[in-house]
């Protein structure tokens, strides 16, 4: 495995700047997720690292070597795409062995057998090795697609939303699986997703990206607890962070320079009170948790509440803030 360094990487398509001076170091063995909405430049970044696109400016370093001028084959990277494509006429074994049988590699057949078996075991598809690729379920197919990349022992892995075509249940299973495999192999992974849960649960570090720019990089906990901008604060957390104008819950004593108060569930204390400052609007039952929607001074806030509580729509509640996040007029975080 190897480390990846991106230095001042930019890519333009005509008028549009898809990636804008992006700089990040991914140490050997780290799992980094780039998180952002559709069109943020995540996939373009990944394709620049893979060599599928040429950067207009900046460098890509893999294992300390500048690979910016090299083609994809010479970069020793493995790419897992969103849509898995297997060879339908081949067995699972042959699909997994395919990259090793490439004339460019010349791996001995005995070595191929042992590597394929090892990867199949890791992905828990050993019992399917003899099956045709078309006889597999969606989750199994995607595991084979990931397996085909794992047999190669490349320098780095690049993954473009590899779980997004799966249903919710399988996605949950493969999240934990992928994290375990990464840990066992000590693999360097650059992973791209718009799903905050994938980013939070798998990555060592998350890079929040917007309009081609990397806004903040940090561990999931750092990004969640310590976002530097409103944009970052809105990317993590369900329900989404509540954003209120400074005057609403601070009883007129709004601190200087603060335009917006960001309050997550853990920043809010809500209790039933005769003449409170808020009114329960409705309670959304999501089974495991309830979302409590409260109206306060013409604004709405949504928090998690335990399924067992005594609040009803129309109830008056007292809302207090407990160390919320503060932002200035530009949307930047202000420490207090």
């Amino acid at each position: 495995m190897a480390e990846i360094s991106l230095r001042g990487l930019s890519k333009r398509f005509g008028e549009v700047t898809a990636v804008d001076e992006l700089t990040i170091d991914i140490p050997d063995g780290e799992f980094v997720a780039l998180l952002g909405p559709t069109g943020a430049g995540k996939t373009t970044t990944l394709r620049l690292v893979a060599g599928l696109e040429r950067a207009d400016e900046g460098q890509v370093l893999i294992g300390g070597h500048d690979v910016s001028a090299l083609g994809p084959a010479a970069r020793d990277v493995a790419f897992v795409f969103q849509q898995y494509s297997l060879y339908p006429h081949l067995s699972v074994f042959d699909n997994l062995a395919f990259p090793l049988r490439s004339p460019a590699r010349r791996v001995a057949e005995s070595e191929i057998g042992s590597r394929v078996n090892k990867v199949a075991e890791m992905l828990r598809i050993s019992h399917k090795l003899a099956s045709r690729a078309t006889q597999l379920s969606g989750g199994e197919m995607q595991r084979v697609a990931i397996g085909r990349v794992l047999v190669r022992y490349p320098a780095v892995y690049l993954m473009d939303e590899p779980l997004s075509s799966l249903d919710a249940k399988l996605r949950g299973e493969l999240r934990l699986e992928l994290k375990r495999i990464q840990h066992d192999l000590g693999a360097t992974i650059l992973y791209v997703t718009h799903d905050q849960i994938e980013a939070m649960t798998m990555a060592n570090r998350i890079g929040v990206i917007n309009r081609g720019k990397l806004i903040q990089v940090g561990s999931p906990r750092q990004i969640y607890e310590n976002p530097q901008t409103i944009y970052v604060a809105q990317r993590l957390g369900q329900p989404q962070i509540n954003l209120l104008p400074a005057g609403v819950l601070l009883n007129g004593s709004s601190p200087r320079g603060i335009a917006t108060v960001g309050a997550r569930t853990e920043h809010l204390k809500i209790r039933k009170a005769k003449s409170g400052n808020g009114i329960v609007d409705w309670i959304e039952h999501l089974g495991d948790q309830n979302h409590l929607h409260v109206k306060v001074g013409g604004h709405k806030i949504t928090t998690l509440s335990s399924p067992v509580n005594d609040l009803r729509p129309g109830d008056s509640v007292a809302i207090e803030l407990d160390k919320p996040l503060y932002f200035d007029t530009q949307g930047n975080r202000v420490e207090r």
Partner: protein
Amino acid sequence: MAEIRVEKLRKTFGEFVAVRNSTFTIPDGSFFVMLGPSGCGKTTTLRMVAGLELPSEGQILLDGEDVAFKPASERDIAFVFQLFALYPHMNVRRNIGFPLLCQGTPRAETRARVEETAKLLRIDHLLDLPVSGLAGGDRQRVALGRAIVRRPKAFLMDEPLGTLDTEFRELMIGELRQLHNRIRATTVYVTHDQLEAMSMADHIAVMNHGVIEQLGTPQEIYDRPATLFVADFIGSPAMNLIPFTGQVTPGAKAIDLNGAKVSVPELAEGNCESELVLGARPEHITFDDRSRFRGEVFGTEYLGTMQIVTIKTQHGQVKARVPAHVTMKAGETVGLSFMGDRLSLFERKNGRALKTALHREATRG
């Protein structure tokens, strides 16, 4: 608006039975979600209600009138598809007004109804803009407007949010439900996404292999799953299903899980099969050093306020949902205990929930 009643509905495609024998009633003004994996028969059911597919047997009553064999155009219902298509050469106003133009509605009335609809959807400021420049959310609102403007007896929706990315989907879930609260139109909504179903539905029908496995309110289905399939399908992560062998009798308040005594809701019946399954939601599991039910922490998944901890036990993997500030290390041995009054028991082979103080009347469709 109307009540929809479906009676003994059946649909076969050659040998394949898509819908087995469905009977249910959708009350006037309710938001009804048909939930299940692909191929469970939910879309086929919806298409039969719409008149896009003829049933093999059974009745579909719209406000008491059997419409099962009437063409779609005579049913007075509006269908919203997964991929919404707008007329690109028309502006927002003409897109929304199009169904009325087809019906020959007078101009003044069309104008008034389009404006009323646009206000309801909060797109009245966009009426004279071309649809090509609109953002995704506004395009979806225009598509909805085109369905609403006709004031049909019911709305049918087939995964209308399926293609949207997560963040935007969550926004639209909230909007659709609020729109329903304002107009209270009978709505039948098909999805495989349990979160969409839990967030929007008044009633959910959980389908599998052409059969409705359970019909109830979201909370009821979540708290008292009638079958193993429902228990496993609803919830993220799903209910922990822990297999064990044993005998239970009516009145019992505890089970023996390989030497660990676990209290359960008082049983109202005994079991016929000895192979049983204990069902426990991740949030009904707590860490308890004194418990004899033990396991090793396999991994944690941080979610901000909460985290999911996966524990390897001799009964398989168990997932617990605990606050994010509790520190857990992979490899650590922990004891687990259960919130006894919230557990479910199932017979493994037929998948049926045993009746207990919690599962008084486990309804099955």
